[in-house]
């Protein structure tokens, strides 16, 4: 069965005609060419394919696009505003929070969802929020640091403003 889908990804609406049984992960990577969303297991066991649906982290490998019509999907390609990087992207790059880079997209999106709802998260909050994203390179230390750095920028930015 194929379906016509209207999928809103990174602020743009795409009209697609594709197999209904393709997961969001497959549609993003294969139909839309958005290969920044990675896959490590295809079974919901690693978090590499994490994207946001209306700001909430979900796993693209277990989501059907047909059910996500009308919702706003954000992938790593949608994090930056034009040429201006999201603070998380800058912090992940500058603090060496991305080694091989394969978990990075999912990590940043989980972190973005946290920082969007919690301006001043504790280290435990960050651990909780990123507990669904496996990383094999960093030991998570630099990832924690990067998220904390952005969080503190966010909260000082706010107190200034």
């Amino acid at each position, binding site marked *: 069965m194929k379906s016509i889908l209207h999928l809103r990804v990174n602020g743009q609406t795409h009209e697609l005609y594709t197999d209904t049984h393709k997961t969001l992960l497959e549609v993003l990577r294969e139909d839309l060419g958005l290969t920044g969303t990675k896959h*490590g297991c295809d079974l919901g066991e690693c978090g590499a394919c994490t994207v946001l649906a209306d700001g909430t982290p979900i796993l693209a490998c277990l989501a059907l696009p047909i059910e996500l019509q009308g919702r706003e999907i954000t992938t790593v390609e949608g994090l*930056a505003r034009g040429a201006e990087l999201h603070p998380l992207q800058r912090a992940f790059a500058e603090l060496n929070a991305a080694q091989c880079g394969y978990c990075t997209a999912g990590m940043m999106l989980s972190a973005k969802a946290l920082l969007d709802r919690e301006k001043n998260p504790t280290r435990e909050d960050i651990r909780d929020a990123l507990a669904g994203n*496996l990383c094999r390179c960093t030991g998570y230390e630099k990832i924690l640091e990067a998220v904390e750095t952005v969080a503190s920028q966010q909260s000082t930015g706010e107190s200034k403003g």
Partner: protein
Amino acid sequence: MPVIGAPLAKIDSWDKVIGAAKYADDMSLPRMLHARILRSTMPHARIVSIDTRGAEELPGVVAVITGRDVPIEYGILPSSQDEQALCVDKVRFVGDAVAAVAALDAETAERALQLIHVEYEPLTPIVTMNEALDETRDAIHTGAHADHHNIHKMVALEFGDLDAGFAEADYILEDTYFYQGNTHLALENHAALASFSPDGHLTLWSSTQTPHYVHRALAKTLELPASRIRVVAAAIGGGFGGKTDPFSHEIVACKLAMLTGRPVKITLTRQEVFYCHRGRHPVLMWVKMGVRQDGEPTALHFRTLLDGGAYGSYGVASTYYTGALQTVTYKIPAYKFEGMRVFTNKPPCGPKRGHGTPQPRFALEIHLDKIARHLGLDPAAYRKQFIVEDKTKTVNHLTITTCGLSECIDRVVEASGFGGEKREARSEIHESKIENQKSKIKNGLGLACGSYLSGAGLPIYWNQMPHSGVIVKVDRGGGVAVFCGSTDIGQGSTSLLAYIAAEEFGIDVRDVRVITADTDLTPVDLGSYSSRVTVMTGNACISAIRPLKQKILDAAAEKLLVPAESLSFRDGEIICEDDDARRLKWTEAIALAEAKHGTLSGTGSYKPPKRAGPYKGSGVGISPSYSYAACVAQVSVDIETGQVRVEKIWLAHDGGRALNPILVEGQVEGSVYMGVGEALMEEMTYRGGLHKAPSLLDYKSLTMRDMPPVETFLVETNDPEGPFGAKEAGQGPLLPVPPAIANAIYDAIGVRIDETPITPDKILKALEEQEKGRAARFGPKNFPAVKYPEPIRVEPPEDAPRLERKKG
């Protein structure tokens, strides 16, 4: 502005954080086909027949191949050419590749696999090492691939007078240890994309750490001239040694591309990656160590038995590595090593972070802890007494250039309070309000050390050529391009070349482009393995740049009317140190240099110093330099549940000069993470010949909530062999972590867990033994009666530790 030593972002991080980095599975080409591999469902069987007709007839299928299409044997080591891209006569493990399909889409290829009928004649699988030692069973390999029946490799070496050493000992301790096998689990599944042009040029993009070795394997198995094959390493989503062999799927993708004339991509599933494996060998170890009353080692006898799985892979090297580096931390005047690797019908083991050395390090460091406790010595001060010295040799002919281990121990002891008062548990999880609960949580600290090489001293195939080559080109616009065959697996090796070029030329890192890992474009570098990249590519890069700098200085000196020796490269200018009014912009200077000398480019190469000792097998273990690490682990153990929580890790690493401290810290933290995982949960487990847990859910790796905080100390010796004094950092810091945890558990609850992973049920079993008044230990009970060959007896070098005769 100095670049070396600065905490700069990696130059390829930016593409990674915007999702633009292209990993092999992210690539596609017009008319591309998708391929899948049919894998054996039998651990050990003869292939009677393969019927591919059903698959060929399926609409959408373009090509089906079997072993007869790619029968030529290959393997990473010249001495272990025992693999076939698709098995011809026999399968040797569940997951061995049997046939392959290329189709218009991946779903069709997958469906086609179900239509291939393979008739097998099952053979009894050989699953355990004891079964492998039983000569009445079938041999997994025949002919020259094994030393004897299912024994792949046997080694026996003796350095110095072992009997005399034990005779001098006041205390001799013997014990057995087991280190479980585990796997790399890189988050990216292996993928390969092949393209074949009508004029006979083959290109392969692959997630490989070793494009040069893949290049050689493709030339051999596909019978193409290497000159018409191009291998490019795509961005790599984690390696850890898991992508250092040439793999079946790489050869298959190429063959299918050649047959169909269309690009072919293969992306493995997670289960297939478990089958590719090449991970940590399970190693059973027997250790006998003699010491004097003050703990001074007099003799060490070490036996290892490795479960190699179905193929050779790096196994010959792995076997030697289980014996090579015991001598590079503490002065050992007499050493005997006996090692053996056996074949079993399981996915092949190979090199994983620390290649063959974390297992013996686990045994040795626990063994030392036991000795220290027996003699009533402080484990830290005890170790410090016998640390090897700079510019000496070990009893097995390894050369120590610099050793910062003593300072490493000081740093972690001071920070952790090791040896002092016991600490309270950090974890809020244990701060239970439940009555009497706190008394069930016991805390402990444990210490261990380790060392690893900064690159293998010999290439994997014998040759006299450089291990690493670099070409540097300077553009009129001021940009510098560095070409090198090295592969960046996330550690930052590509960035390092940019830092070195920027430092040498005194320019901004952003003015350097680095092109890597492309056998058409870049000079050979052997690849990302054995922690060789910083030292070897770094040195090659410097050697390419220095003559080029001289040319630029000559031209600048002529213009500025000063001696070239008075000039230096700084902040985008060439400046006279004696008169800083005399200066030229970088772009002016290179224009003058190009006018004077022609196109500005340079080549550089690096070959490690020749240091092999006078014996067969001496090629494994030699290295330009050794890194050192000391670790203190703090654990809390719940004596009712046996659950261990690692509360904190302190790790000090002597990786020489840190060329970029945040990259070195990243390597340390990642190593600690992997060490904690191996100590507590990671393991390859089998039921019969079938992998029990080939998934990211069932194979346990630490999540962010399981990872303890890590305090890292960089001890920066200035090593004469390294670029700017650098040594390795990617593997060494893993080594002390598992034994430090085991020693901390002993400190907490007084039981010894002499095998990994240290699971709660093992702790409870050891506690039960303790309660019954028996040896409070969980671990292997004995070492099988293995017939090692007569040892090769080797005279230690002059400047190695000597046994002083004090007795008799």
